[in-house]
């Protein structure tokens, strides 16, 4: 009886491990479209992004400004609503991992919404926002 129970637990754990493995690896196997990236070098002024870069599937443009240490994620939240967020965790200043569903810090597990608000601790502060100038065709990120 004990052996059977043990086998059952072993099989359950194996099944659990298999399921976790499938859930863990299946999305990687899918063709995930990468975030649109813009490389630039602006020390001070504005970084102009065309609104046509934003599509129904892609609401984030990642700005890689070489003059700054951290990337900037320009997020379209509504038709005329945008936010430009610094990809620096407010907990211990580690780089964030930008995804289409939010921003994650691998160092201690903090996560942030696309609006830049803390979703999970240990971070306690929201992400730094850059000022924007929005026109009909462009979004200008003021740095």
């Amino acid at each position, binding site marked *: 009886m004990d052996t059977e129970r*043990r086998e059952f*637990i*072993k099989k359950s*754990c194996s099944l*659990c*491990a298999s399921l*976790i*493995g499938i*859930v*863990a*690896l299946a*999305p*990687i196997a899918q063709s*995930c*479209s*990468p*975030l649109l*990236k813009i490389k630039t070098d602006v020390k001070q002024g504005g970084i102009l992004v065309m609104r046509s870069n934003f599509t129904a599937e892609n609401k984030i443009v990642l700005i*890689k400004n070489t003059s700054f*240490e*951290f*990337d900037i994620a320009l997020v379209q939240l509504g038709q005329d609503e945008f936010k430009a967020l*610094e990809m620096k965790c*407010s*907990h*211990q*200043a580690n*780089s964030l*991992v*930008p*995804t*289409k*569903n939010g921003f*994650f810090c*691998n*160092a*201690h*597990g903090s*996560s942030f919404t696309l609006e830049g608000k*803390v*979703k*999970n*601790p*240990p*971070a*306690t*502060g929201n992400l*730094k926002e850059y000022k924007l100038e929005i026109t009909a065709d462009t979004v200008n990120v003021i740095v």
Partner: protein
Amino acid sequence: MFRLGLLVIGLQFLGFVSFGQVLTKEDSLAAGLIASDRATVISGYGSAIYENNLTEGKASINLDRVVLFIGHKFNNKISFFSELEIEDAKVAGDGNTGEVAMEQAFIKFNIDRNNYITAGLFIPRIGIINENHLPTTFNGNKRPFIERYVIPATWRELGIGYYGSSTKIPGLNYTFALINGLSSANFESGKGIRGGRFEGSDASASALAITGSLLHYYKNFRSQVSAYYGGTAGITNDEAKLLNIKNGIFGTPVALLEADVQYLANNVTFKGLVSYINIADADKINAAYNNNTPEEILGCYLEAAYKLTTPKGKKWTVFGRYEYMDMQMKRPSNSVSDLTQRKQFVIGGIGFQPVNGVLVKLDYTYQVDKTYTEQNFINLGVAYSF
């Protein structure tokens, strides 16, 4: 607050803090003294726990840990990170008190924005708690049992690690590290490989280990697989011959596999983790050190939690967790069977977060082992991180 003010003034005189910048409350407390043009970061975390063993009628209260983090950015490419921990509040010469330990102390070299290297004492990406071990990030006063005894978190060793993020697949991260191995001489019965960690203290570099992980964020899922393989006999050739165990880089190896998935929606969280350890030469370790080392270890847990935010912004969390671990899933013939090492746990509790960074926790733990010996605990604690 007054001390913090003094600290900030001190940092200003040391040149770490730029003059002319007004420190707001958010700057200094919420962001842990981080600002865009400041090079030194100070933060920390800690927890205190009241534990009542209802079965034995015994209660205790302890300042579990207080950790001070100090980081310094030398330039945009090179930074220093450290965590200094005091466990159990007091360290004295009577041998019956806590410990002071470096939990991390490493230099981080940024290759570019998606790739960096760490060198020093660091925490490899294995399991959930190991990297994310701050008490405000996990449910319950105690870390999951599986991530204390099967994955011996907080598991830090000396070495060099590579961390990367894919530019092709959003949310895909990977790590690879070369670290010092374990010491099978210090394995303890019922505690798996935990006692074999060096934790940066005079570690043997004759035995080494490699570890790697894949971590992926996809929609609300955070999924990870990780592996570890390393030697446990960093001893001389003569000693190895005398003890009849294999020394060398990967001699008398330990292999660990782990997979976990977290579902992180706004109010609902699910976690699942499985970990397996194989110690192929457990019989030889037992013959050499008589420490009842098992050949295979298995552990898994499932957790569900629901978070509720009141109109005033206070957060409540209710959670339940089931854990199973078998520290002797398979054992060599020269070991002693111990049915108490096959345990199940059911933990349930609540957490109250009056403000981001502070958590009051109350939980109940039911523990039963294979001899049907039961234990019941109630834990009440407070945790902080900033």
